């Protein structure tokens, strides 16, 4: 009996080892890229799998960013974590706080002895996801930044030069007035208002979002975005909304429908929206330019900050498998792959080499405006206020800001009262985060 048992165990063990030798190590990559973007992700994984034999990357679409994160958390708790999970930028501080769950990218690379050069990356892209002493925590993947879009046809109809976008907010107001006067339904609408109108308006004018270098210096921070320039700016938009120079189109990316539907002539939106907007209006009917600024706040714009998502490596897998993860991350950040991803999707290339490769290929000549995002990000050396944001409970804080801004647009509150309240409520959430992660 025992001999039979023993031999069968041996047989099974042998089978397993044979199987193990033949099979590649599978690397699970959970992501939130649906539709066309999902196809692009699958193509990347395919390319990597064909390039070598030891590892096989298996991308799995898990729904929205939130759903993907929730799924990864549940899997981690059940000790079934994927190797790589895509997390949006607002989750950064919460991911950092999850010690023991995250395997920082710089360490993954060092442990696997993969060559890795931080200087190859575009400054604000790298800075957003690295520690204060410059160590990269998660691999930037799909990064974007807000850019200014305008509808050339509506500009022409309003008697404006269709090839000259407004440079300052004052000019935006004047253009919006003419557009409304010429029968346009709406002058200007922003996408992801918390990101574009508060966070990026701040970085663009070198204003702090929070203390301690926007949270890069620690978790005991306070929000600071209820400053004079931003109160004035939000109040100005609220005043514009009375005669449709400004129209609020909903949270997140909902307002883009007003632009693609030909109601709004001007838009500030993610550079990743370029292909969708061009598709709807026609490539030659849309212009892409740098975001307008307020010269009375800062004589010239600073630099913009990014949005989008990065790839986090999770702990809890056998050590050998992380070698494959490191190889895959190297592959993803190679100039050719990045250039291809950037041109296909409109996301920002994460390395300078990829940007150069795209420029040399003549892509920007055929697709004017697609280089604006990189130009905005690299306009100046990032300051403490424009490096990025490292805010705990950021998803909830953004909800609070959204709610308070909506109170301004509906006329319930003035800009000062709303921003003060947003800061107050946000600080409560920050305190909670600090207490929980001491």
């Amino acid at each position, binding site marked *: 009996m025992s001999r039979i048992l023993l031999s069968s165990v041996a047989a099974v063990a042998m089978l397993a080892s044979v199987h193990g030798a033949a099979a590649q190590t599978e690397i699970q990559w959970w992501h939130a890229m649906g539709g066309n973007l999902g196809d692009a992700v699958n193509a990347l994984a395919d390319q990597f799998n064909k390039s070598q034999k030891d590892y096989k990357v298996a991308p799995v679409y898990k729904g929205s960013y*939130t759903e993907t994160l929730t799924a990864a958390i549940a899997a981690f708790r059940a000790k079934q974590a994927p190797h790589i999970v895509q997390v949006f930028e607002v*989750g950064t501080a*919460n991911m950092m706080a*999850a*010690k023991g769950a995250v395997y920082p990218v710089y360490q993954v690379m060092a442990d696997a002895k993969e060559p890795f050069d931080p200087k190859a990356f575009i400054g604000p892209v790298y800075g957003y996801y690295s520690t204060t002493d410059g160590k990269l925590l998660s691999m930037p993947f799909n990064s974007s930044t807000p850019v200014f879009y305008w509808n050339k046809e509506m500009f022409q109809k309003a008697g404006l030069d269709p090839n000259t976008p407004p440079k300052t907010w004052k000019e935006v107001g004047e253009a919006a007035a003419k557009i409304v006067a010429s029968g346009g339904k709406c002058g200007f609408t922003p996408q992801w208002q918390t990101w574009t109108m508060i966070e990026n308006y701040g970085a663009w004018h070198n204003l702090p979002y929070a203390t301690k270098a926007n949270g890069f210096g620690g978790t005991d921070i306070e929000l600071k975005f209820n400053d004079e320039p931003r109160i004035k700016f939000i109040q100005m938009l609220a005043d514009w909304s009375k005669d449709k120079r400004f129209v609020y189109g909903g949270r997140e990316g909902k307002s883009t429908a007003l632009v693609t*539907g030909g109601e709004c002539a001007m838009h500030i939106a993610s550079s990743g929206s370029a292909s969708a907007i061009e598709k709807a209006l026609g490539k030659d009917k849309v212009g892409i330019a740098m975001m307008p600024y307020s010269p009375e706040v800062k004589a010239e714009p600073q630099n913009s900050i990014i949005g989008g998502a990065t790839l986090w490596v999770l702990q809890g897998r056998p050590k050998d498998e992380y070698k494959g993860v490191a190889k895959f991350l190297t592959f993803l950040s190679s100039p050719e792959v990045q250039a291809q991803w950037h041109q296909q999707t409109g996301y920002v290339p994460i390395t300078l080499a990829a940007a150069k490769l795209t420029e040399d290929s003549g892509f920007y000549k055929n697709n004017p405006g697609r280089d604006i995002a990189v130009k905005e990000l690299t306009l100046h050396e990032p300051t403490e206020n424009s490096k990025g944001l490292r805010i705990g409970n950021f998803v*909830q804080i953004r909800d609070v800001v959204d*709610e308070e801004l*909506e109170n301004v647009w509906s006329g319930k509150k003035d800009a000062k009262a709303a921003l003060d309240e947003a800061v107050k409520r946000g600080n409560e959430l920050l305190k909670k985060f600090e207490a929980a992660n001491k």
Partner: protein
Amino acid sequence: MEKRVTFNERWLPYLLVAPQIVITVVFFFWPTGQAIFQSVITEDAFGGNTKFVWFDNFTHLLNDSSYYESVRITVVFSFLVATVGLAISLLLAVMADRIIRGASAYKSILVWPYAVAPAVAGVLFGFLFNPSVGTVSWMLKGVGIDFNYVTNGNQALILVVIVAIWSQVSYNFLFFLAGLQSIPKSLIEAAAIDGAGPGRRFWDIAFPLLSPTGFFLLVINVNYAFFGTFGVIASLTQGGPGQATNILVYKVYNDGFRGQDLGGSSAQSVILMVIVILLTIIQFKYIERRVHY
């Protein structure tokens, strides 16, 4: 005399109720226990750094003005959904009950919306009332109403109430109709012979006899308004604009699964559970007394 069923085997009754007990334990007691446990700890999203904090999560909530705002909105919302919804369904049931020709066609049409999931209903109405391309909002503009649920909080609340009622009317309608049809015809006829008009016959005979159905539906509808309407809110307004439609159950989801604040979210669900238990007890204790079976 009362008829009693007796079992010869001792284990048989336990076996028969076992599936129900298992379902209740797995889908109610276990998650409830988890929620209560989560509500007294804080931890990071990945389950590390767990700390026992007593009632800190509850104190945070009770000091948070936005939580009270959410409670207020939930009360208004549930009251509107339950009362207006029941009134409309009753009216429709009475109408359908009186119809003779094509009755089944009307009934089928009235039951139809129940086949549409609340989330789908939310998307549908979102299209109809879309401020820029919606058919209904375009017609409203024609009569001088600028309907924009994206920026106007009151309009958003009205819209989610309409959608929530629309999805639930069929269910209420079915029960009311069945209730009406089970009222003995002889009672109605006797009243008619005594000279009672249709209004009088409804209020003095049909309505009291419908009260058990009405009571049952009240409990179901209040619970529906508290929990079942999640899909409507999630697909239509996500709690906005401002906090105009941020009902408690949506806030639980939002703080827990979007904000990854599991402690705070669990504390909210514990409170929510207590509220619903209390409501149901009150309904059974006080309203049921006035119900004629």
